[in-house]
């Protein structure tokens, strides 16, 4: 559903995205994971036709993003990082407006609005102006809006950024429901656990490049299943082991208090770059 070949974007002399190549299969949840400034959002903006690539190519649903932007736009749903809803309009009006932008017929618009407001748990708020909604509710409405015209591919840019843990879990539940429905999803995140929980495959990005790409389990298996770290000592490098026992054994030789736990995608990032992913 998504194919990129050497996709590159320069802003002046700054290479925001450099020769990025990957494919996303139909029905897959594909994540771009990386710290702020890694090039995740720029990649999504090129795939959603908001930015022109400097070089390389990309296609979505079989259409070239540079040469066939209108065809691409008909097949995609975009759920941006920014809560760009019309705050003066009600929840229903926001969805209706989106349906009109996509030339949906009146009865279909009304039925889909009702279906999606129930799906995201905002039916009771259908006539409430967005300005009176909480951040979590707005995020759910944004998801409903992105799905309104039944896109084949949905792009989500940091879908849970700024939300409290409870609201984040709620969004994860919605994304898992979408995943079961077979929709293709590409999301960016800098939350490790989000990529781990939701994605079938993850591309780890740093400084505009993909430095690793695989399923979360396979990526973690590359570094070792268990991690040993000194508590409160970020200057001492983490160590990775294939078994818990091996990690415990190594921990006995350390002079600091140690923590043994299952490896995460952040451990993968640290092992590849020597840096933490967040911050």
């Amino acid at each position, binding site marked *: 559903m998504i194919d990129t070949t050497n996709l590159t974007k320069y802003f002046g002399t700054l290479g925001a995205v450099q020769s990025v190549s990957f494919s996303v299969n139909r029905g897959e949840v594909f994540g771009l994971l990386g710290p702020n400034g890694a090039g995740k959002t720029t990649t999504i903006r090129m795939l*959603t*036709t*908001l*930015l022109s690539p400097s070089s390389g190519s990309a296609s979505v649903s079989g259409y070239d993003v540079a040469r066939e*932007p*209108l065809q691409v*736009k*008909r097949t*995609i749903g*975009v759920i*941006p990082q*920014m809560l*760009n*809803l*019309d*705050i*003066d*309009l009600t929840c229903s*009006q926001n969805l209706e*407006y*989106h349906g*009109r*932008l*996509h*030339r949906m017929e009146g009865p279909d618009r009304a039925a889909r609005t009702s279906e999606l407001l129930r799906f995201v748990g905002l039916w009771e708020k259908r006539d409430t*102006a967005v300005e009176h909604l909480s951040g979590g509710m707005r995020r759910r409405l944004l998801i409903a*809006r992105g799905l309104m015209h039944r896109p084949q591919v949905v792009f989500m840019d940091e879908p849970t950024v700024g939300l409290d843990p409870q609201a984040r879990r709620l969004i994860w539940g919605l994304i898992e429901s979408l995943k079961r429905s077979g929709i293709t999803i590409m999301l960016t995140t800098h939350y490790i656990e989000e990529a781990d929980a939701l994605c079938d495959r993850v591309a780890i990005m740093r400084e505009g490049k993909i430095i690793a790409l695989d399923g979360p389990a396979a990526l973690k298996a590359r570094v070792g299943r268990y991690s040993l770290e000194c508590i409160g000592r970020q200057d001492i490098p983490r160590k990775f082991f294939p078994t818990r026992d091996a990690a415990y054994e190594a921990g006995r030789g350390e002079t600091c208090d140690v923590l043994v736990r299952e490896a995460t995608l952040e451990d993968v990032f640290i092992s590849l770059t020597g840096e933490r992913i967040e911050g």
Partner: protein
Amino acid sequence: MNFSPIIWKEMMLIRRKPWRFLASSMVMPVLYLVTFGWGLGRGMNVGGGNYLEFVLPGIIALSAMNNSFGPVSTSMNISKLYTKTLEEVLVSPLTAWDITLGRALTGMVRGLFSAVMLLLVGFAAGVNMHLSLNFFIILTLTAFCFGAAGVGAAMLARTHEDMANFNSFFIVPMSFLAGTFFSPNQLPQPFESLILAYPLTHASLLLRALASGSEPSTGSVLVLAVYTLMFFSLAVRLVKRAGG
């Protein structure tokens, strides 16, 4: 063409806060009318007629400009830079042409509304004006011209300060110099020629001629039409460049 969603949204916003729409459309033109028409201009004569009759067509043109350019450029600039609501439209299948036309038409409607309200105020004050179909065609063209200019300015401005600069260096000088409050031929050369380069000057001259029952200048109609085409084409190009 599918510009109707943009009009629909504008209608929803106006329906939600109609008094805000009415007040914002009326404040400036009524102030101009009171200050220059009834205050400063009381007892003044221009070309044998009273000043209020002279100045009202100019203020109507000015009002059409301000109320089409201002709301379109401000709301579009905010939606581009601050709320990012423009991105929803840019990633929809609307073409740059649809987006520009929809936005320019919303500006046109606002401009026309304030102009018509001002006409009513003028009539209530006893001003005699000859209203014809041509008068409303020129008024519509004026409002559309500046609606399109508003789209172009919003897309060109990279910051809110840039937007303020458009007002300071383009709109405000035109408001005072473009034949609204005085006839351009009262100015010495080269100022008269410079003022004739403004699109609003031609809108004022045309509306003034039509309101007095005179023949409008074909040259002024052409200038206004060329400006409209130029602003609209520029706006379409800029919207396209932004991803539309």
